[in-house]
């Protein structure tokens, strides 16, 4: 469980998060949506302890970060590190002694090649594999479906379902609503740093329609496409 109370974050004059209160339970999958700059990544970075903040983030663990797998929007890779070495590095970081890397290569990645030469989707899959092998209890997946091929997309959805079944807490930010609808128990709508709405599974369809109406509005007409 991760409990967030009155979480605020300011970058200079910009208020990135405004008194966010939310609880993420074990064995549930939560979607965080919002337009670009709404504060999703900042929220994740605060939970991970990568940013200083006002308010509180508490969990079942003394030190949440040691049980948290964080898939970043754009994972960083050194220029000459192979896929295998990347997995080993993140395994070592969590003191995982035995890694059966080849067997765990569920995305069939070319692990002997330098990770920096991978495509965007392959990098995402490698980073995801790494945090899965760490055996974390909580997961933050920032845009896990970005640039990922359709087969891997299906696999990632199944992985998220498995994590949920195993009692893990999973937070996902994604701009692809269908994948969120497929995997999440709740979706939180973040707008200008504030959590303005929480929607349960039964109302996902309604939320999608609402978002579509608000987002599209009469913008297409304005384009005067002929």
């Amino acid at each position, binding site marked *: 469980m991760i409990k967030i109370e009155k979480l605020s974050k300011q970058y200079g004059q910009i208020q990135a998060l405004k008194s966010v209160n939310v609880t993420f339970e074990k064995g549930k999958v939560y979607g965080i949506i919002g337009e670009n700059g709404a504060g999703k990544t900042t929220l994740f970075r605060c939970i991970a*302890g990568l940013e200083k903040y006002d308010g509180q983030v508490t969990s079942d663990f003394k030190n949440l970060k*040691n049980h948290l797998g964080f898939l970043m929007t754009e994972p960083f890779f050194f220029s000459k*590190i192979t896929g*295998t*070495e990347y997995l080993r590095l993140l395994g070592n970081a969590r003191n995982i002694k035995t890694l059966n890397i080849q067997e765990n290569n569920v995305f069939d990645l070319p692990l002997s090649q330098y990770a920096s030469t991978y495509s965007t989707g392959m990098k995402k899959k490698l980073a995801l594999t790494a945090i899965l092998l760490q055996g974390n209890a909580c997961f933050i997946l920032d845009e896990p479906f970005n640039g990922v091929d359709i087969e891997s997309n299906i696999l990632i959805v199944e992985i998220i379902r498995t994590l949920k079944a195993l009692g893990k807490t999973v937070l996902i930010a994604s701009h692809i609503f269908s994948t969120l609808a497929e995997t999440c128990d709740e979706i939180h709508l973040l707008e200008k740093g504030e959590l303005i709405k929480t929607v349960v599974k039964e109302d996902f369809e309604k939320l999608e329609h609402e978002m579509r109406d608000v987002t599209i509005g009469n913008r297409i007409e304005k384009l005067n496409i002929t």
Partner: protein
Amino acid sequence: MKGYFLLQFKMLNRSLTAFGFPPLLAYILLPVCFVGLSGYLFSKTEFAEYIFLLLAFALLSKQTGRKRNEFLKSCFTRTDYIKLRLLENFVLMLPFAMYLIFAKAAIFVIPLVVIAIVFVFITNNTTIQFTIPTPFYKKPFEFSVGFRNTFFFFPIAYILTYIAVSEGNFNLGLFSIILVFLVAMSYYSKLENEYYIWSYSLSSNLFLIEKIKTALGYITVLVLPILITLSIYFTTELTTLFTFLLIAYAYLITVILAKYTVYPNEMNIPQGILIAISLLFPPILIGIIPYFFFQSKKRLTKLLP
């Protein structure tokens, strides 16, 4: 093209300022340091010209990055691109060429010019699928990545050891150890992304110890052939050899720790000054290492509580 070089000049000034150096002071000090260090190198070894070539080669090869060159090619016409790269390479090799002429080793300017021209047409294609094997794959990343970037230095160091033995030149043997250590120290010159620190389920204390342990273990692997060779052939110099090695280990630890003393910022003037003082007076390392350790620990606590 003029705009490009002006922009480079501005970027250089910004980097110097960010490093804590007023650009004007840097433009005065850098040539002085270059001449001073070159003089020292040429006075200490007869292989200085080759080391000079190697340094110039390393500097020029830095300009051959694929992304950088693809970007330049997309901005300029083919002719302008070639002119620009030629000019860039000649500016970089100029100090080396001038010193070689000054040191009456003008013949070495020829390979330098050849390298400068050839490198205009070479792009370091990092997308090639060949992976350079590394003996340091078990504990990434500094040594595994670093080894792949600098593997060619090690045969050079081993050849220098061979020459040291065949010529009976113990100092050259020590120089080969310095070379290996300097190369290893360069692995710690770049700051890693915070994610690679954050991921560790270790306290900042243990994280630093782990980094030092790995570095000492791996550098020993690299320096061992030199050490064994020198121990066998220079039995009367064993005390000097092992004292020297101990100091080299201490410097490596200092460099590792210095990287984290101001993390997430780059190493700055105060750390540079302390390291410079330690070069003049190595016993000061006894104080610098614990100081850097404490500072690094403090800096990393945010990511490793």
